[in-house]
């Protein structure tokens, strides 16, 4: 990796790309197991969008790396400690409520984040963000509808969704962090200052929680570390499945 801003741009694109890839892989794990046929189709479409987004972002990361890397080599050739995704998206699917809660908490952020990214001075990132924005709107609407349906549904669905939110909340703080990489890029208008998104995210989530009858969990300390490669135990298992074919038969093509 080259030094300076170029290296930072690689790191940044990798963070965005890894988050999209890991979430896409998680969602695709529902294929064949979703609660209803319509949801099977919905969740595989959501997965496809995320993997498409990952492809664009990892291609860009590979271009910054400039050593012949490709989106595929970054996705399939790195080990767990080299992944830079948000911890929230690597959390296991659990039940349908857990998947919906994860997708909702992330999608509110995703929409705010990419709306800001579409206006940054990095033309390629801005282009990717503008391209994916209308798709993210679909993700958010789908997740919102299900948050309301489960939260304001039966006693069972409400209890499960509240439990899911309670479990995932400690991973939400990481979305609004910025380290030296982001600070350097923000100064050049080449990245989004995610710290500014915390308040609008919180306001939007609180409004939905009120409508769905959910309580905001009390979490004293957020769990972070995805940017530094400090992951939960779950990511390695996810990558084992994602990377199996390319690890076993390197360079294999369909």
């Amino acid at each position: 990796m080259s030094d300076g801003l170029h290296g930072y741009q690689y790191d940044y694109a990798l963070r965005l790309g890894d988050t999209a890839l890991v979430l896409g892989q998680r969602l695709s794990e529902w294929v064949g197991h979703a609660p209803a046929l319509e949801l099977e189709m919905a969740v595989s479409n959501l997965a496809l969008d995320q993997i498409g987004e990952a492809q664009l972002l990892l291609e860009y990361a590979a271009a910054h790396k400039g050593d012949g890397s490709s989106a595929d080599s970054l996705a399939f050739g790195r080990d767990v400690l080299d992944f830079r995704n948000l911890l929230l998206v690597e959390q296991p699917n659990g039940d349908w409520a857990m998947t919906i809660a994860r997708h909702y908490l992330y999608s509110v952020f995703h929409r705010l984040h990419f709306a800001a990214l579409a206006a940054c001075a990095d033309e390629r990132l801005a282009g990717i963000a503008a391209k994916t924005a209308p798709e993210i709107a679909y993700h958010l609407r789908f997740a919102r509808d299900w948050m309301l349906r489960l939260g304001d549904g039966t006693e069972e669905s409400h209890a499960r969704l509240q439990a899911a939110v309670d479990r995932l909340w400690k991973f939400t703080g990481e979305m609004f962090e910025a380290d030296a990489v982001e600070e350097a890029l923000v100064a050049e208008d080449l990245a989004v200052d995610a710290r500014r998104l915390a308040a609008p995210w919180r306001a939007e989530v609180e409004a939905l929680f009120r409508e769905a009858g959910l309580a905001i969990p009390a979490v004293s300390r957020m769990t972070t570390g995805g940017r530094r490669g400090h992951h939960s135990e779950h990511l390695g298992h996810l990558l084992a499945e994602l990377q199996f074919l390319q690890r076993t038969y390197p360079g294999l093509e369909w």
Partner: protein
Amino acid sequence: MVSDDAAIWDVLRSVPDPEIPVLDIVELGMVRGVETAADGAREVILTPTYTGCPATEVIRRSVEEALAAAGLGGIRVRYRLTPPWTTDWITPEAREKLRRYGIAPPRPRRSAPDRPVACPRCGATDTDTVSEFGSTPCKAAMRCRTCREPFEVFKCL
């Protein structure tokens, strides 16, 4: 060069969308132009429809093969993301073809979001959404309350 371009556009109009074969890629609004690259090579510029659409690579190959078969080999195919594709680029003729094929065409982006979708079979507007996600990334599942048939609608992007 102009006659060359006309030949290229003719070839492009012969390449169908692999998932909705009644439409070709030009009427779908996927072809942004034919340009000359910095190295002098001719390039066909395409724009992807949906980010994760698996047809994107199939279309690239189909275009390359169709150009080669027409004796226009050596023309490159390149995807360009900006400005992002929108369903507003689907031509009026293509919308009518979609409807006749059984897929309700996308509504204009600036239309009211509650504007009803007409059933492509009977034309009734008493329809509702079954799922915002359909058999491909570009379609949602709906049903008609008048003729009771399920149908798909092209999602608005």
